[in-house]
């Protein structure tokens, strides 16, 4: 198991946001956590990346506990998060944003990784000298994903990559996720767009008010009646 989360409980003050969530991600898989607003998906992701701390439970990455490891050290171990709402460095150029993504990597690897990101996102290459904040929403999402890839992650965590994007851009982003998957990357995807997420995912977990209520392969859930009713509209 690349990542194994066991029975984590996360609190915001007195609010019990995540109530005993367990899941795991194997090498080469795309695993998705889907669910409605406030289900606790992003909380889980932020806990894995070290921004939040679970009150109990264990998180093993490559068989080592990362529960009390600082977020910056977790990135160094090969776990990159592409945060919700893109959060690019607005006043840096596209290329500088990507260079920041390689912050934990030796300088010698930067050039090669940038070339790799430009292959995936030719759009970013066109705009590499442009200031990040002036990019369109879709381009910013690509930049945020590219930046996360710069750290050569063993596991890439994407938090709502489709948020606020036009349907055509959502398709593009998911096509890229598929491409990453095909090239062997491991991805943990948090999404509200259940339809899209289930189509690309190997396995999926459904979250509801802090708990996992359903799990299965992507296609299983895509065809499940309860999922259809709850998330896919009919």
């Amino acid at each position, binding site marked *: 198991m690349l990542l194994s989360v066991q029975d984590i409980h996360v609190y915001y003050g007195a609010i019990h946001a995540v109530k005993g969530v367990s899941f795991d991600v194997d090498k080469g898989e795309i695993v998705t956590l889907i669910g409605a607003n406030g289900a606790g998906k992003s909380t889980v992701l932020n806990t894995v990346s070290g921004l939040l701390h679970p009150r109990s439970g264990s998180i093993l990455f490559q068989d080592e506990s990362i529960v009390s490891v600082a977020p910056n050290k977790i990135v160094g171990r090969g776990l*990159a998060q592409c945060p919700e709402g893109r959060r690019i460095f607005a006043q840096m150029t596209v290329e500088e944003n990507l260079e920041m993504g390689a912050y934990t990597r030796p300088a010698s690897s930067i050039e090669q990784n940038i070339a790799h990101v430009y292959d995936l996102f030719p759009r970013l290459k066109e705009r590499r000298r442009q200031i990040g904040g002036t990019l369109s929403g879709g381009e910013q999402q690509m930049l945020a994903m590219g930046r996360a890839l710069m750290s050569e992650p063993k596991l890439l965590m994407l938090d709502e990559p489709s948020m606020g994007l036009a349907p055509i851009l959502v398709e593009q982003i998911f096509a890229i996720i598929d491409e990453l998957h095909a090239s062997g990357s491991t991805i943990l995807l948090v999404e509200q767009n259940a339809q899209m997420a289930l189509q690309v995912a190997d396995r999926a977990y459904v979250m509801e008010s802090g708990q996992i209520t359903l799990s299965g392969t992507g296609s299983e859930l895509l065809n499940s009646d309860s999922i259809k009713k709850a998330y896919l509209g009919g």
Partner: protein
Amino acid sequence: MKQTNTSIRIPMPVRYLINAALIVLLWFILSSLMRSGAITNYWTGIIIMIGINIILAVSLNVATGYLGQLPLGHAGFMAVGAYAGGIFMRAVPVQEFLRAGNAGASVPYILIALLISALTAGIFGLIIGIPALRLRGDYLAIITLGFGEIIRVVLTNIDSVLGFDFTFGSAGLKRIPKYSSFTLVFICVVLTCFIIHTVMKSRHGRAILSIRENEIASESVGVNTTYYKTFAFVLSAMLAGVAGCLYAGYIGSLYPSTFKFMKSIEILVMVVLGGMGSMLGSVLSATVLTVLPELLRSVADYRMVAYSLALVIMMIFRPKGLMGSYDFSLSHLLEKGLCAVRLLFGRKSSEKKGESRE
């Protein structure tokens, strides 16, 4: 980073040499003008104050412009540095050296004083920075403001607590040897700018900038944000301490009331006016805002009005400050000049522009 192929690049060591030569030239011109009397003592004093204010503004700019926080207690760090340096210099026999015209013998003491000031202010920066930097925005502003005031009150009252004369309270710490010569201040200004420039161009500088841009993203790419926030804050405090030490050695007597809240605001105004995150801006506006009140002395009654008016007009027409976040690079200018010359003389540039800027 790749550059477009058409430009001329001046290699790094040459750039440093050009800059160093110009700095020495500037020092030489100013100091010979002072020696010949073309710059009067009055103006020499103003130039020294400009230097001190440049250090203050440039160091505050690290915390505001580059790190993106809003500390309002910069005068507090300056006060710590000033008193640390002043008390030390009174305790050592520098006064006698200076009086005997033996300035050379006082140099080691001056260096120690600067070091003590920087370290003391740095320690205070660390003590206040660790809790304060957990907050942001208004909260950080208020806690640092409170800190600045605490320093001032402590300096006023600590003697009665200690039971012996240490800071001499509001009567003032007097008879500090006047060791801040023009050359000393000049060297400190150059070193300060050099240190900040070098730090900001390094990987550490990028990390600090990324915190300003987006703290969450910065954390998610693996920057240790707590460390770098504290680092920038302490650096800023240490340099303010140096400025304080120079101030003590220039003015000769220190009063806690000098380091009131308004002093912090004054420094902040320099930074904002110059443009947050622009070192050149801070240098320029520190110069202008030191000279302006002096020039306006003839209209004494109205000078604060004119001064504030200048600020208001400034903020209307250049809301991002004099220089915005633009930073001047002489070598860049030279490179552009050389390019123009090459084009003029029609030497065909063998390379073509690879891509359009779009």
